[in-house]
């Protein structure tokens, strides 16, 4: 117990990034993620890193682009409207095959929306919020501890496959405090960045060029195909999810991030009332854990996706289940958070045969 500290999600994410070797942070303030840049501004100088508050989100993401191009471990963070502003830069980073980590502590939208927790940026994160053929790897922690544990993975996956990785949280995860332990992270053997990073030739090698402009369509197609081969490897190697009580479940809840905690509470209460309820919790939203659904669909009768949105992840659930079983949806939006009792009510409606 003694090695645990009580920390806000935002602060813990920042500390975990630094412990994962992140030495460059560029950002622009926005609620509810301000504790990330605040913490970075204090800690980065102490570890010899760079913290810079840019003049805008657009500037911040392009600074990330530059630092990533030079081979640095670099991160930015923002919340929904700010992430929208960063989309062009994200596409350029993808197009230049560069690694970085982007944290989105989601708030209610669209527009300026609100500042309370939401999951309404799922489509933007998972389906490509910017232009072009690409995916982001999207990690969705449901506790402060998990956010910390995933941070090293986020940077390692980015470096391993030369892709941007997004950590998708929400205002609740960012603002809440929980006990957290910073474990020794082993990290992975990662490929050298020498072949592409613009670190200076010192007159000894041909220069590396960071670029996302390819006028020759054949060349661009080849690059996109190569990138998608790496996405295939990511799908094979980086899938993460949790299945709880699915073996005997009549109905399986599907939820990610903090909503999965609410769903978990609902599942435990429902079980104590004798309802056979399970839970699938995707941790990687892309790649989406289709295999979990292929397992559960064999035994369960129906699924209920719960989100803090009008229904976004539920589309991936439906695709994974491919019509084999009914998929229901319950969501709250605009900063409202589902309650366990509302979820139980939905479960009872479905199990009672109502549609």
């Amino acid at each position: 117990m003694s090695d645990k500290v009580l920390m806000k999600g935002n602060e813990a994410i920042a500390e975990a990034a630094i412990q994962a070797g992140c030495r460059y942070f560029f950002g622009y303030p926005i609620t509810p993620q301000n504790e990330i840049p605040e913490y970075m501004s204090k800690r980065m100088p102490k570890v010899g890193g760079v913290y810079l508050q840019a003049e805008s989100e657009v500037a911040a993401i392009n600074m990330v682009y530059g630092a990533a191009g030079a081979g640095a471990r670099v991160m930015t963070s923002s919340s929904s409207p700010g992430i929208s502003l960063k989309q062009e830069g994200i596409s350029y980073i993808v197009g230049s095959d560069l690694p970085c980590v982007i944290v989105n502590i989601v708030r209610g939208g669209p527009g300026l929306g609100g500042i309370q927790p939401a999951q309404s940026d799922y489509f933007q994160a998972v389906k490509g919020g910017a232009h072009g053929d690409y995916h982001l790897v999207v990690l969705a922690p449901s506790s402060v501890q998990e956010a910390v544990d995933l941070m090293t993975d986020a940077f390692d996956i980015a470096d391993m496959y030369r892709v941007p990785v997004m950590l998708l949280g929400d205002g609740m995860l960012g603002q809440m405090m929980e006990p957290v332990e910073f474990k020794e992270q082993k990290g992975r053997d990662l490929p050298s960045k020498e072949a592409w990073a613009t670190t200076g030739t010192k007159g000894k090698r041909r220069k590396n060029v960071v670029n996302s402009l390819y006028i020759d369509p054949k060349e661009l197609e080849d690059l996109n195909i190569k990138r998608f081969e790496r996405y295939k490897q990511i799908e094979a190697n980086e899938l993460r999810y949790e299945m709880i009580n699915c073996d005997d479940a009549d109905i399986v809840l599907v939820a990610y991030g903090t909503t999965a905690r609410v769903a978990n509470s609902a599942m435990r209460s429902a079980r104590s009332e004798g309802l056979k309820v399970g839970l699938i919790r995707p941790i990687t939203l892309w790649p989406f854990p289709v295999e979990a659904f292929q397992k559960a669909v064999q035994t369960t009768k129906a699924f209920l996706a719960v989100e803090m949105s009008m229904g976004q992840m539920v589309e991936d659930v439906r695709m994974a289940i491919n019509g084999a079983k009914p998929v229901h949806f319950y969501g709250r939006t605009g900063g409202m958070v589902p309650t366990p009792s509302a979820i139980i009510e939905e479960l009872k409606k479905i199990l009672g045969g109502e549609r």
Partner: protein
Amino acid sequence: MSSTQEIIMAGFGGQGVMFAGKLIAYTGMLSGKEVSWLPSYGPEMRGGTANCHAIVSDEPIGSPIIINPTILIAMNRPSLDKFEDTVVSGGIIVVDSSLIDRQTTRKDIKSIEIPATQMAADMGAGKLANMILLGKLIKETGFLSMDIIKEALKKVVPSKKQHLLDINMKALELGYNY
């Protein structure tokens, strides 16, 4: 006491509501329990009602949002008005009676009234009503121990404010012995 306490602490911004909630969570953590702490964030922090949700449990915590608290600590009238009806039957409402001019109308809960702000002013530490309320809550419920909360206090008080430790401890004691 049940194995889970869900505490809403509410008052004006500046009364130390967030700090007291953090102290509860930290004490729970040092007691080996599962804990969470969630602040209200947004414009209400400037003068309106600020509140935080602290959960201390023997089981893993699902939602950190409290809908029906087992304990409400109200440091102003708007907080009592807002949360009074949400407290579970059999729960506890702790009221700073120097600032709240009415009693709770609930008959199915335990009401604890203590003139915390007056007591704090009398001891020359007007801002420590929050600690007095916590001390009283611990006396009445025993769900946290005074020894461990003092341990936690040392960790929650930032290093540059360690000189305020003693007065905080005294305020806790004052509430405990009221």
